[in-house]
């Protein structure tokens, strides 16, 4: 009997521990960060633009844009200043009544001036603190990050979500990279490699539309170590991705083999790359081999291309187009002395004995490096149409 009552008491006491966690976070006490913009002001202070979710509005309103009977915008923007990121986030509590919650944040945009002054000081907070995710996407704004975060979006109720989707959709053209914090960390930690991030810019829309300006992906921001040095346009960005073997899909437009005035579209199906470092008389020489498979995606001419000769010619043109993109990226990277292609790491892997000597002066070595580009491009299929709809008879 005594034991039973003791057990009963124990159950009663233990039930008090089941009420929940020590520092619980209820949704209605949190301000969920959707996107974060980091700008550097002229006086060296950090300006944070925080896009915060209004969960009530998101749930209540039908899927409409604002002004059409919906409950207004689903997010609001807090702008705070501070000497460091952490201080700025703490300063936000003077205007945000709820606790800032960074775990759901998948978009971080860094302003151009902040990027020029160096990434690593800005990101230490992200690597140290336990809440932000390593899988968040990171961008560089052309101009101020504040404007990007402030911009609205036609499609998505939460503009931050739209930016995240842009990063995921970048593989359709492969004209901008998709970079998460984890990827960035890995390139920042390397002694020889340089980093790159996708760029965002605000583009004016035609008059009369509900939203004046919208956010668009624009090429790649190139960093020397962790400082912004310049931008790659779409073509150069893809050149970079070719070498890294990160091209997933995309479109190559070449001139038609039979009719120079018309365009033929080749769709990239898959691509891979191989980097072979060599030392010739102590001088580094790199061979980049890119293997690509494409389909005939579209053609504007009325010439029947479905014969082996034309396909072979298309393959040559495709290889030429890829080579041109790679060379554009290579020459710019060598001019700036930024090893975006992880060539240094490849030398470390293949020539561990010579590497310490090379590493000392890697920037010069990279600038003067001879890079051979070899393309193996194939055109495999032609879709469901074997001939254009008004095919001309080939004149023999």
């Amino acid at each position, binding site marked *: 009997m005594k034991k039973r009552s003791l057990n009963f008491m124990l159950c009663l006491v233990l039930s008090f521990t089941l009420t929940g966690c020590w520092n619980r976070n209820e949704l209605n006490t949190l301000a969920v960060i959707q996107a974060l913009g980091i700008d550097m002001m002229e006086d060296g202070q950090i300006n944070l633009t925080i896009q915060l979710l209004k969960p009530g509005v998101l749930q209540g309103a039908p899927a409409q844009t604002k002004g059409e009977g919906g409950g207004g915008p689903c997010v609001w923007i807090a702008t705070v200043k501070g000497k460091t990121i952490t201080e700025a986030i703490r300063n936000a509590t003077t205007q945000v009544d709820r606790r800032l919650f960074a775990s759901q944040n998948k978009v971080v945009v860094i302003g151009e001036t902040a990027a020029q002054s160096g990434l690593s000081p800005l990101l230490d907070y992200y690597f140290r603190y336990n809440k932000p995710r390593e899988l968040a996407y990171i961008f560089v704004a052309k101009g101020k990050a504040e404007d990007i975060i402030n911009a609205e979006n036609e499609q998505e109720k939460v503009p931050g979500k739209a930016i995240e989707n842009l990063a995921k959709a970048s593989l359709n053209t492969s004209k901008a990279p998709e970079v998460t914090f984890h990827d960035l960390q890995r390139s920042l*930690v390397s002694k020889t490699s340089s980093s790159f991030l996708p760029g965002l810019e605000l583009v004016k829309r035609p008059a009369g539309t509900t939203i004046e300006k919208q956010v668009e992906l624009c090429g790649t921001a190139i960093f020397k170590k962790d400082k912004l040095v310049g931008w790659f346009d779409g073509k150069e960005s893809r050149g970079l991705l070719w070498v890294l073997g990160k091209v997933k899909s995309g479109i190559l437009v070449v001139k038609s083999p039979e009719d120079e005035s018309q365009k033929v579209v080749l769709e990239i199906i898959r691509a891979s790359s191989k980097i072979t470092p060599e030392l010739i008389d102590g001088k580094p020489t790199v061979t980049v081999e890119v293997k690509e498979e494409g389909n005939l995606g579209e053609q504007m001419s009325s010439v029947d291309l479905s014969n082996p000769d034309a396909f072979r010619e298309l393959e040559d043109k495709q290889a030429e187009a890829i080579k041109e993109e790679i060379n554009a990226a290579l020459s710019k990277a060598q001019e700036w002395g930024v090893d975006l292609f992880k060539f240094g790491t490849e030398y470390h*892997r293949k020539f561990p004995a010579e590497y310490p000597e090379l590493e000392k002066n890697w920037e010069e070595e990279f600038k003067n490096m001879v890079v051979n580009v070899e393309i193996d491009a194939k055109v495999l299929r032609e879709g469901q149409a074997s001939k254009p709809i008004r095919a001309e008879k080939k004149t023999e």
Partner: protein
Amino acid sequence: MLEGGKISARQMILLVFVSRVIYWITSLPVLLAPPANQDVWIDLWMAVPIYWIVALPFYFLAKRFPQQSFYEYTQAITGKAGPWLGILYVLFLLHITGLTLTNFSEFFTTAVMPETPSLFFVISLTLIAAYAVYHGIEVLGRLSELIAPIIMIAIIGVVLLLVNDMNLQELTPFLEKGIYPSIFTGLSPVGQTIEIIEVAIILPFLNDLRKTKKVFIYAPLLLVFFLFILTFSELTVLGDDLAKTYTYPFYNIVRLIHVGDFLERIEVIHVTIWILGMFVKTAFQYYVIVLGIGQLFHLKSYKPLILPMGIIIVASTNMLGSNVVAFREFLSFEIYDWYTMFFILFIPSLLLLTAVLRKKGEYSK
């Protein structure tokens, strides 16, 4: 007789496995041991022979005194100095238990719940461990049998989910510094494995004493195999530079898991096995401490010692280091391994030498 229970060789091996591998799923100091580069995953296999060498004194001592625990034969060998040596070992194990609990709460306050007082984690774990210790060695053995498979499945499952993120190129250049540094890489995990003393203490409770050799041979193999899995996945997912930067590299790669858009944020699995494993580890260390005091002072039961010792353990966690940096510096390869080596290699070897010279134990007959 302080302890009437018996455990099997398998339970003993799993007890060692849980106690050691659970620590490696957060901190992995082997990454920082020389050569501290991408070759650690292969160099660490050198730990297996080093384990066997370190186990030799314990093995021969156990052969000479099959019915006695480490504390008991220490007294039989050294005579009057025996109790003092025993107390030294109790204090050493107390220190290690304090370090274990500090590590347990530091992980929580750093990575999971920064605002909860660390004393809360320490007290709750010590209380549960005290309950397990109260029920003796058989309960510990069965606990290890229950929890070890959970830990194995969780680790292997997590690593399989990460296969997509692994980049085998991170492991090249292969053996950059040659084979020589692997001796140091091998020393690092062995130095941390104070569980070898705990095994020597509970060896007389083995239900089949002929299996002593089996414990000493297979436990290191299992440990090094899992150390290899952890190191390999961390190096291939993070690369050696980044893996060294992180305080808790395995926790960070668990955070990186994303399969499609639905299977992510599964670090709670890591936290769950961390609590389960730390419970077994703490209980095991707690048990050998109170058993040691019981055997040194020839008490009839160690049970009255459990709660007072629990209070000492909880109190000691607060005194071990002024902050986490000092704590980690102590646990680093350069300091901690030499500290433990004194207890797991130096003293046992001297004991064995003394036993041979003074013709103590069964072999002398």
